[in-house]
């Protein structure tokens, strides 16, 4: 990442957003709704996996995703020298 322009910063941000939203989509819409029957054949603890994603797992993943994004963005902000103070 030698290109330190504003455009490169924005591209890197968009890439990160797309990655996070892909995970967001997979855990909720894919695992929790579209593939729920298939995943319910597998069990995790005492939960059926699809049901667990729909009522527990997706929410935990959302929390982790936001902190992951914040952590990566702080690094990007510093790398491109656009951070505050």
């Amino acid at each position: 990442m030698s290109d330190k322009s504003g455009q490169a910063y924005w591209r890197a941000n968009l890439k990160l957003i797309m990655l996070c939203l892909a995970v967001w989509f997979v855990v909720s819409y894919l695992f929790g709704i579209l593939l729920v029957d298939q995943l319910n054949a597998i069990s995790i603890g005492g939960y059926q996996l699809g049901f667990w994603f729909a009522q527990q797992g997706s929410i935990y993943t959302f929390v982790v995703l936001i902190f992951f994004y914040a952590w990566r963005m702080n690094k990007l902000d510093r790398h491109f020298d656009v951070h505050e103070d």
Partner: protein
Amino acid sequence: MDLQTMTYLVVGATFALYIGIAIWSRAGTTGEFYVAGAGVHPVANGMATAADWMSAASFISMAGLIAFLGYDASVYLMGWTGGYVLLALLLAPYLRKFGKFTVPEFVGDRFYSKGARLVAVICLIVASITYVIGQMKGVGVAFGRFLEVDFEVGVMVGMAIVFVYAVLGGMKGITYTQIAQYCVLIFAYTVPAVFISLNLTGNPVPQIGLGSTMSDGSGVLLLDKLDQVVTDLGFAAYTAQKGSTLNMFLLTLSLMIGTAGLPHVIIRFFTVPKVADARTSAGWALVFIAILYTTAPAVGAMARLNLIETIQTGPVGEETANIQMSDVPDWMNNWKTTGLLDWEDKNGDGRIQYYNDGNAEFAAKAESFGWTGNEMTKVDRDIMVLANPEIANLPNWVIALVAAGGLAAALSTAAGLLLAISSAISHDLLKGMIAPDISEKKELLASRIAMAGAILVAGYLGMNPPGFAAQVVALAFGLAASSIFPVLMMGIFNKNMNREGAIVGMLAGLLSTLIYIFWFKGWFFIPETNMAPNTADHWFLGISPEAFGAVGALINFVVAWAVSKVTAAPPENIQHLVEDIRVPKGASAAVEH
């Protein structure tokens, strides 16, 4: 000490705390009134956002909704949490960088148009007013059930409390009371949940208890047992899907983008010092929300199991396996007097049968048992949270705490909504359009008057709820999803989006969603004026009115994009503005205005 005194004591103590905070955190400037001086720590803001977001419905009704819908209620769990990912990634940091006071202000500046700002103000006020009615009702109901005062008196006491801290302290007062309210409500929610989980599974963590084996020595998993028990009585399996997949998908999406587009949530992120704080603060908000939202499925499932096993004490069909009318536990009698629970001995056998009498396949079986219909004639879903402490035999102080928690949830959400409404009136309408030269002192006074007015209107509507009060949540989320979320997102992510595109897009999203909702629920919710019955067979592709917000948002995006292609590009200074909000640097300078 008797329950009544205990409840007055606990609720009184929490109210004294809120008033104390109000006096300590008075607002001296418009900056403090609108955004708490942008000096709230991200963790504190996360906690305040959680209280702001979790309403009377989240606290009182959601677990009951899950108890009766089972897997299908996952749409609410995912929809009302996944929106925070969108907020953190797509909106909050950029709007914080923009550094102004209200959501319509961003729309007006970014699309260089007072018209666009006005459309945003209208969407905001309609969405927020419809939402606040439910909170005021929640306050009245909580007072009525726990303190045995009249509904109207309850609403008035609630109004008076909000009045003190919201008018005095604005966003600053609201923020710190919301933090206190979060602590009260989460404690009140989790304590009964821990005990009920311990009771049934021996595991004190409800999130793990829900996936554990029963502690009765049978070695059966709780969820398997629940599936078994409900299907034995002719109900659909708890963990099985009942609704259509397309509708679940779109409803989840509508709730997510609606959540991200609700102005009273967005403005909470204007209160943190830095752009980086806005990102982490959204994460903290979701942590605090997730504590309740991951507990709720356990409360719902366990309360449903407890309720059924209280009534059906042995194998289905055996004569002595149903509870005798004279043996029902005290909590059932207590809640019968409130009208939330009721039963009737239809077949005159002196016992209660609770089963699904709408299930044709089960009917023959029921007949052979001598059952002549479901005898639990009323099981209000709110009972699942409200009666929880009594079902688990918890001491009186826990019951008192649940009352205080319900009130905290309703009051904190009401205050956040009222601030969004009053700042739209004093800052967007008055300062932004009618009297731009108004001094800060006068604007601060105007914002206090607008707040007082908004409280009166909300209180009046809470006491005299329009007949459609129950329907309007769909409207609030539909509006936020189809108009506010897309316009904000395009304002940030599409540098070429112009005034014409934004306005026509907002109107297209708004109108298509409104028409779809009114089509099935009646024009302006007036009964009998609907154009088609509100059932899945008549919905377009099986999409329910509640789930249409996502389609409205798509219409908004497409129309805005098409219109912007054939009209003039935005002026150069606007394109610079967009470039500026995309980088965090210089955020502290932007707030001085």
